[in-house]
């Protein structure tokens, strides 16, 4: 059981990182979208490994089944044939690399400083059947206000997206 967990973690982690690298380097945008889908699915797999089954399903339904469909639609609507022949990277790659190194160094320092306290409690044999109920309990009692605000945010975003994407009748 342990080795299965570790094997799955290595599989999902490698898939996520490789897909992310491919996403950032591909010339073809549609291929990039497919690699983002793969990354999101491996992230969902990692959520499942962490015993968070509701988040796993939310990630698949919302992120992969909703947001990425939106992305793919828009990519197909703005797909220029020239975009494959244009320069893909701008001239700031050096600064970006330096910034990324600084961020990584900060983060690694934080992990090293707290290395004694990072210990996962032992996992139960199976996923607890109460994860969805627990999330729902928390969401609808303690976090009711953020929940309502999030729904208003989605309403505003929906209206905004429809207004922005409409063709103006000139």
């Amino acid at each position: 059981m342990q080795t299965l967990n570790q094997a799955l973690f290595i599989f999902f982690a490698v898939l996520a990182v490789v897909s992310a690298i491919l996403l950032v380097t591909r010339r073809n945008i549609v291929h990039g979208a497919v690699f983002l889908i793969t990354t999101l699915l491996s992230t969902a797999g990692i959520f499942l490994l962490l015993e968070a089954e509701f988040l796993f399903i939310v990630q698949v339904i919302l992120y992969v089944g909703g947001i990425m469909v939106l992305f793919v639609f828009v990519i197909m609507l703005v797909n220029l044939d020239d975009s494959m022949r244009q320069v893909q990277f701008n001239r700031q790659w050096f600064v970006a690399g330096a910034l990324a190194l600084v961020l990584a160094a900060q983060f690694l320092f934080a992990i090293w400083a707290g290395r004694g306290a990072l210990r996962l409690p032992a996992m139960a044999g199976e996923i607890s059947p109460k994860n969805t109920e627990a999330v729902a309990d928390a969401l609808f009692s303690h976090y009711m206000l953020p929940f309502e605000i999030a729904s208003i945010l989605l309403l505003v975003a929906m209206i905004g997206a429809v207004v922005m994407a409409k063709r103006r009748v000139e």
Partner: protein
Amino acid sequence: MIPVDYYLFLSLALFTIGVIGVLTRRNVIIMLMSIELILNAVNINLMVFSRMWGSVDGQVFAIFIITDAAAEAAVGLGIILAFFHNRETVLADEMDIMKW
């Protein structure tokens, strides 16, 4: 048992790749997708710590982040579509109407 550090390294790797993607690519849609990558890295962090401390608060927060990502992707793609109808380009370098 997979140590917490490994999950944190994974999320660091995704975060860094996302940051590099946002800063170096010219295509605005790829930049948006890299931002989604950054949000996912943050989600992995939240989930790991929610598991470590045994509370579902991290997972609830992750749900809000996913909701927020949906809203932002919708509006962002709407803006890209509107700009594309006007200027026929999706490259960030060429979106310079407000430059003096």
